[in-house]
């Protein structure tokens, strides 16, 4: 039900934008032509999904059940750190940002701190070497030029 509502909102947004772009005519379809029809279809199908989900609400799994007995904090934390990583990467550069991220990730998968640090070092070292020297693709540099 929640998913159908999110999709419904997405479709509604696209619909409104498409009107702004101009739909054009059939003989000369404009930029809004495709978004308009696709979003109308999406609206219709998300409504169907909503209705069927609502009808079967007795057999519906509750939202909390989906995460029941799972270590969802791990996934959530990993996602949060990845988001932070993107934010800091252009500033800190690949070497520092990735080292920190890898230590965190290794810790998350319940490794001991020193092994995590060692693993992170090795991983970052090898990936940096592979891309910068062998493949000649420079990885992001931070404000200090590395």
């Amino acid at each position, binding site marked *: 039900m*929640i*998913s*159908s509502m999110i*999709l419904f909102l*997405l*479709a509604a947004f*696209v619909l409104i*934008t498409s009107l702004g*772009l101009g739909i054009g*005519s*059939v*003989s*000369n*379809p*404009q*930029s809004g032509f*495709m*978004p308009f029809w*696709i*979003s109308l*279809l*999406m609206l219709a*199908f*998300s409504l*169907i*999904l909503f209705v*069927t989900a609502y009808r079967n609400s007795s057999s519906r799994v509750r939202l909390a059940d*989906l*995460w029941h007995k*799972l*270590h*969802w*904090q791990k*996934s959530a934390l*990993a*996602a949060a750190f*990845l*988001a932070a*990583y*993107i934010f800091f990467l252009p500033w800190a550069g690949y070497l520092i940002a*990735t080292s920190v*991220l*890898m230590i965190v*990730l*290794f810790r*998350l*998968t*319940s*490794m001991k701190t020193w092994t995590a640090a060692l*693993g992170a070092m090795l*991983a*970052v070292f090898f*990936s940096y070497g592979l*891309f910068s020297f062998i*493949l*000649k*693709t*420079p*990885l*992001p540099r931070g404000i200090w030029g590395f």
Partner: protein
Amino acid sequence: MDALNGLFYGFSVAFEFHNLLLMFAGCLLGTLVGVLPGIGPVGAISILLPLTFQLPTAGAIIMLAGIYNGAMYGGSTTSILINVPGETASVMTCLDGYAMARKGQAGAALGIAVFGSFIAGTVGLIGLQLIAGPLSTLALKFGPPEYFAIILLGFTFIVYLAQRSMNKAVLMALTGITLSLIGLDPITSQQRLTFGNINLFEGLGVAPVAIGLFGLAEVLGNLEKTASAKILNVKIKNMFPDKSQWLQAKWAIVRGTVIGFFLGILPGGGPVLSTFISYGVEKRVSKHPEQFGQGAIEGVAAPESANNAAASTSFIPLMTLGIPPNVVLAVLFGAFLIHGITPGPMMMTQHPEIFWGVLASMYLGNVILLILNLPLIPLWVQILRIPDKILYPLIILFCLVGAYSINNSVFDIGVMVLFGIIGYLLKKFDFEAAPLILGFVLGPMFEVNLRRSLLMSQGSFGIFVERPIAIVALIICVILITLPIYQAIRNKYIVKR
């Protein structure tokens, strides 16, 4: 160039030392990702895509195709030994493969999977070799209306053959098309849904989206699980199935090959679906259906043959029409574009070294995989013992670096992470990611061909009815759409009575 000359030429390309090496590396890597649960061929190909930048195009595609084929072989190993499919195309193999292993027939199960794969893969390649030439000549005759109709047919198949809810598949395909609308309008260059951000002018990249949905999402989903699979401690001996087992599996291999062959060509079909259908067919035609799930060798032979045949033939629509029929090929399509080549009817004439070279190397790859696979199984079993806690962070690192290095863009890492989270949530809510990525890749083609058709006909929809290929495709669409609706109504009627 006819099919035979082409093949000889192809072998001359495939036997070049560096191509041979790349094919070998691809097959090995593919088998590895096939073996490792949690990362499938889509993730692997998208993550490794940037590594192929420095290679000549033919070599790069040869390696990526090797990964695809290798994964089809490798996936069975984990299915049989630990009842965990290494990738989705091996799900069906679990049922009887693991049962066989528990009965002490692990060797025979692995053996029949490999031989079946080899036979089916080779047959699929012969099909590719023979059909591709005539079809690409024909494909030149395909104008915008034909392309529109065929892509619409593709969408219909994707939805019709969805493995879960059809409604959800429609929604995912539509979401994919919507995402593909981001960027400059391909016809008028007007900005759409870009919010003025120059990073979005060219739309979201296929690779970051695919790495997120199929690589990162998988790891995020697995991180929260504590349970770990136990490896069956069996002595694997006697890899060659005995004569009675051969006889039993013979027709299963043939049927699996045929099913995989045709489903591979169909848009929305592909290896995964072919395994489900061929398993179902085997169970239905069997004289002893009760043995399925208890270690019937047909239950291993049929799906393993089907997925390899499908993997080979799915190259047909990509190489001749430029339409990727399934997710892996959608990512490969991106790989071609990155190397500056647009797959389509002109590819065979303008880049014969790629078409024939890739084809020939896939023949070789099948042979190498056959030879390599059996002796290497003990090694794969060892690799399966690498603990997840090392593996998962490393996969995340690969995802990050992979997403960055395609366009050297931090923005793409953001896109990848966002789609990783979206993919994780989609799985939670029981949505499939495959229709989404296919909608995303086919979306732009769908749109421009519709709009070009209407420009050509000056707004008349008659253009789709006047052309034979287009009308046939559209009629099939209508049938496929009305069929499930009709069935639903009939079922309701019967229930009421």
